[in-house]
Every structure is written in C-alpha cells, then in structure tokens.
C-alpha cells in the first residue's frame, strides 16, 4: 500500500494543476464566505452557517481535483501504465482516495478557518463565532469533512464514468441539481424527501446550528447521507475499475 501511495503522490505532486487547485479551494471557499458575510446586513438566522456559505462554491473545485486525479489518467492514456505497474486496481483507487482525503482535509481546514475568520470580521453577529463552542465547532469540522466526502464522491463517479467532462456533469448534477430540485418542488412532503436524498442539502445540514428541530435530518445524519453517497460511488467506481478494460 505504501508503494501505491508513493506512486500516486509522485504523480499528483508533479501534475502542474494540483497546487493551483488546492489554492483555489481555499481562495474560493474563503472568498465567497467573505463576500456573503460582507453582503449580509442584518444578523442572519444562523450565523455559523452563513459564515461557512463559501463551501457551496469551494466544493466545485474539490470535485475538479478529484475528477482530474482519475479522469486525467484516462485522458492521456496514463492509466494503462499505472495499472501495468500496479495491477491491484482496488489498491490504486484506495491510494488515490487516501491522498485525496489528506489533501482536501488540509485545504478544507485552511478554507474553513479562513471563512470563520472572515465571518468574525465581517458578519453581523459574527464576533461571537468561536471554535470552542460545541455547535460552531461541529459546523466548522463538519464542513471540512463535507469537502472531503464531496471529493471522495467525485473520485468514485470519475472512476465509474471515466470521461472527465461527463464525470464533472454527473457530480455537479448530483450536488447542485438535486439541491435546487428540493426548493423548486412545491409539495412539502416531496421537498423533505428530496432534502434527505440530496447529498448537498443533507450534507450541509452539518453546518446548521439554528432551527434544528425543523430540519428533516439531524446534522450528523445529514453528513451520513453524503458519506453513503460517497461510499456507493467509490464502490461502484472500484468495481467498474476492477472488471473493465482500461
């Protein structure tokens, strides 16, 4: 496994886009959070959640990073070299997933800390944001985990779909489309059903600190929905990678 990890790390480290994408995760997440915090004029209903609003945008970059880790290899034909050198295909995907987890954990932590800092400075009522408080800490740490899980979901989808444009379409559709559907539907029962199903709505419930009893899911259960999506995508991607010609 350590050899798998080393090989994947070398590839990732020497791909020119990786560093920029990680930077983009931080800049976009913290930047959108700061922009929203600056735009809000009255103390919002849920201060921590508003301070972390940039995660909605930053997740798209995480998805790009994850999709490129595997679709990039299919695009250039590198995947054949990779699988010749490391015939244990499950191990390859596991190594990629482990590296992706580490990188998004690091970038996500910086991005979330940046968002919280921006919230403390700019958001009305944000001065009270403190990571020692239980719900705020849960919202912040949960947001980092959210980004990691979005990355793993994207990696699984990319392993299954292979083409990078199509993989990006599937991932963004799962995230944004299902989330929008939740609100565009009129019927309240369907709305709650879609909320529980949608990886983004359910997953971002982990950021909620106000009005919890009105939400269709508890915060951690919501993140669990996203985790289930990620696990399903990785399993499907892993099986397809194993049993399909590269």
């Amino acid at each position, binding site marked *: 496994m350590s050899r798998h990890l080393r090989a994947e790390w070398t590839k990732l480290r020497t791909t020119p886009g990786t560093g920029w994408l990680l930077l983009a995760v931080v800049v976009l997440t913290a930047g959108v959070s700061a922009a929203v915090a600056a*735009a*809000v004029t009255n103390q919002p209903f849920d201060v921590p959640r508003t301070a972390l609003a940039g995660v909605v945008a930053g997740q798209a970059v995480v998805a*790009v990073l994850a999709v490129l880790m595997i679709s990039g290899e299919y695009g250039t034909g590198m995947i054949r070299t990779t699988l010749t050198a490391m015939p244990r295909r499950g191990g390859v995907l596991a190594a990629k997933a482990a590296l992706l987890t580490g990188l998004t954990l690091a970038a996500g932590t910086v991005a979330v800390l940046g968002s919280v800092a921006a919230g403390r400075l700019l958001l009305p009522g944000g001065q009270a944001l403190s990571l020692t408080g239980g719900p705020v800490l849960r919202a912040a740490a949960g947001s980092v985990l959210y980004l990691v899980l979005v990355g793993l979901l994207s990696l699984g989808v990319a392993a299954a779909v292979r*083409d990078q444009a199509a993989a990006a379409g599937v991932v*963004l559709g799962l995230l944004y*489309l299902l989330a929008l559907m939740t*609100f565009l539907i009129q019927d309240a029962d369907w709305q709650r059903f879609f*909320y529980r199903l949608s990886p983004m709505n359910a997953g971002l419930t982990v950021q909620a600190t106000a009005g919890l009893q*009105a939400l269709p899911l508890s915060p951690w259960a919501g993140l669990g929905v996203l985790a289930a999506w990620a696990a399903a995508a990785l399993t499907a991607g892993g099986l397809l990678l194993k049993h399909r010609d590269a």
Partner: protein
Amino acid sequence: MSGFGRLVRAEWTKFRTVRGWVLGLVAAAALTAGLGLQTAAGSHSSCGAGTVEVACPSAPVGPGGEAVTDAFSFVHQRLDGDGAITARVASVTGRIRKPDVRPGVTNLVSGVVPWAKAGVMVKDGTKEGAAYAAVMVTGAHGVRMQHNFTGDTGGTTASAPAWLRLVRSGDKLIGYESADGRTWAEVGTATLAGLPDSVRIGLFVASPGDLTFSQDALGGVVSAQRFTEATAVFEEISVLGAAAGDAWRYDDIGVTMGPDGKPHHPGGHVRRGDTFTVTGVGDIAPVGDEGGMRIEQTLTGLFTALIVVVVVAVMFITAEYRRGLIRTTLTASPRRGRVLAAKAVVAGAVTFVTGLVAAGITVPLGRRILEANGNRVLPVSTLTEMRVVAGSAALLALTAVLALALGALLRRGVVAVTVAVAVTVLPYFLATVSVLPLEPARWLLRLTPSAGFAIQQTLVEYPQVAAHYTPVLGYYPLPPWGGLAVSAAYAALALGLAVVKLRGRDA
C-alpha cells in the same frame, strides 16, 4: 455550398455520429418533460366548503386578462350615463394583526397599512374583476387614481382629510383632489373601454393584508399575510347623474367565506345622517405569485437539461483535442475562427431545437394537467407562453455556446464543465435558495450568465402592490429579454476569446 456552409455540415456530421451526445440530448429533453409533467401530475388542490371538498373557484380576472384580487367594502348606487361623485374623506384609521406575543391571544394593534385605500369609485357592476376607476386616499402613498387593477397615478395630497371627486363622461373617468372642496386639481384620467351606460358609483374601503417575511429552516422564505382592516369616515357626499337619489346599497365584495358559511373578516358600514363610516378588508390589485402557480414552474427539469447540454457542448470541442481530431480539422480548414463559429452554430442550433421540443411539450401540457388537478394557474397571454418556451430554448442554446467556448479556452473537460455550471447554475442557486440577502442576490442575477433565467418570468411587478418581489418567487431584477441579452453577451465574449486563443495557440 459556401465554405462556411460546408464547415457547418462537417461539424453537424461529427455531432450526429457520436451516439452518446445524441442520446444525452434526447435524454435531457425527456427528463425535462418527464420531471415537469410528473410534478404537475403530483400537484393537486381542492378547497373546503363546509365539510366537503370542492374544486377551488377560479381566481377573478381583470379586464386586462391578469389574475386579480378584488375585495373591498362598497357603498354604492346606480349611475346611468354621465355623472360624478364628490366626498370628503375625513379620516382613515385601522387595525393590524401582528404576530402573537402570547400564544392564543390575538395581537391587534391600531394602524393603517401603506396601501390601505379609501375613496370614491365607479365600477361596472359588483362582480369581482369588473372594470373600475377610483380616486382614493392611501395609508402612506397619498391620493391616487387607479383603474382596472394595473393603472395607477399619484396625486399631491399626502393623507386624509382630503376631498375627492370622480367624474364620468362616456367611457372616460377623471379624478380630482382638493384640500378645501373649492379648488380642484386633476389627479388623472382613465378610459374604461366598453363601459356600459349603467354602472355603480359610490364609496369604498380596502386594506391589504400585512406582509411579513421570515427565513425557514430549509433555507427558503416564509411569507405570512396577516389580517388588517381600515375604517374611513366619508362626509359631504354628493352624487350627480340621471339616476341620482337612488338608494345606497352595501356590498362586501370578494369577502372570504369561513368553513361555517359565514363571512370571514367581514367589512361593514354605518350611516349617521349624511356621514358614512365604512370598514373594509382586502385589496383591489393584480395578484402575483400568491395567486396561483406560474407556467414556468413546470420547467424545473430544465436544470437537468442545462447540465447535460454543458457536458455535451464541452465534449464537442475537448473530444477533438483528446483524440487528436483537432489537427485533422484544422488542417482541412485552416481558418480556425470559422471552425469554432461552425461548431457554435451546430451546438447552438441542436440545443435550441432540443429545448424547444422539451419546453414546447412541457409548458402547455403541464399547465393543462395542473388545471385539471384543480390548481390555480396564473393566466398568461399566448405570446408570453411562447416567450417562455422559446426563451428557455434560447437560454439552453446560449449556455451550450458558452460551454463550447470554455471548452476551447480551457481544453480540460472537467474544468470547462465546472466553470460553465458554476457561472450559470451557481449564481441562480445562491440568489434563490441561500442565505444571501435580497440586494446582493439581485446583483448576481444582473451580472452573471444566470441573468438569462429572467426570460422565464411571467409575473409583473407593480409599484402600487406591496409584495415580496424576490428571485425565489419568480421576480428577476432584469426584464426578460434584458436578462437573456446578458447571457448572450457572456456567450459572445467567451466565443470571441476562444477564437483569439485558438488562433494563437498550437493545437
């Protein structure tokens, strides 16, 4: 065939021979129609009458064809032919229900809502939605002349007491105001086409519900409309005309009936000598989103189509780079700008047709299904319906061109798809269902390619109607074609940049 025509044909051949793309677009159209019709079929509504469920009565429609609310207290008599009414509105007071402080105890405070109306009116009968013209004192917007629900002209007097006069000659109505009942100033005129000889003339009071908004836990906005009523004292009333001297009659027009069959929040009137005290509840105005469903709500599935279109359009160019086909293409037609233009024509045309078929089926059929299920659907003209259908297709086509250009610029499929989705769908998402306050949300829908969604708006904003004019309820900050023009500008800009870049770069 001209050189460009041949290029377009070559690109069309490339497009139609990739099975995945064709199937993707067919699936996108099917999903758009399927989701729209499925939601329409799942929306039922009925109204209670006592203990039984009956079909909801259809919303009254104004002379201009728009859905209206027409509820007010009307003290009136007959007027045959030309005539006039003059009255002094001595005072306007009222009550507003505020959120309960103690549960179960109705919290009524005294006050008048900004668009409470008290004045004199000529109306074509007492049917809801019938043509009318009126001069009135409002709660906070001074003296106004309004007619046929959408017409509104401001006067100069700020508040009661005020003298009001409405003169009818033929189908023309002229409103006047005065501070002392001696010198009169014209407020406005209105022409009520086809006004019959015999009409009703009299005093009226209306008071629209008090709107409050709060954020709901899922991220949307909950609006609540609370009961208000206004009471006006009318003095020095005089009616001139052929039937003058006819007895006064009272009607509580458009009053809602409670489950017990009695009026819910009735208005009323008291006559003491020549003074009338009239209390009214309700409003005389066009209704927006609260009046029923909008036809564009059948097009929620369009977002699915949007993402499929982005993916296909990006692949239309990035696949050439991946397979090396781009070198053959550029060798065969060395004028690179024209190659990209031909691709844009094909991508735009194919997605436009896809969108046209999908929306052309979904909107009319979805509307019929909704109506058949007892839902109120806001009436729109055929022209507006065609604009929503063709505009949605055009929005898909513009998004396809934008995505194609991004694909040519960035060459990496995943980056191009993500950027295209991020600039078209993400601003819409942030503007409608996020924590963003109204003003920044509106700016997002003015400045980003999401502005094009305005082409779907069928609601009309009226300055004289207090409502929640927000994107999430279907009110966009730009006019329909203006919004689409912003999207078109982005597509053109991206295509221009892509042509420059393609010319100056190795393939």
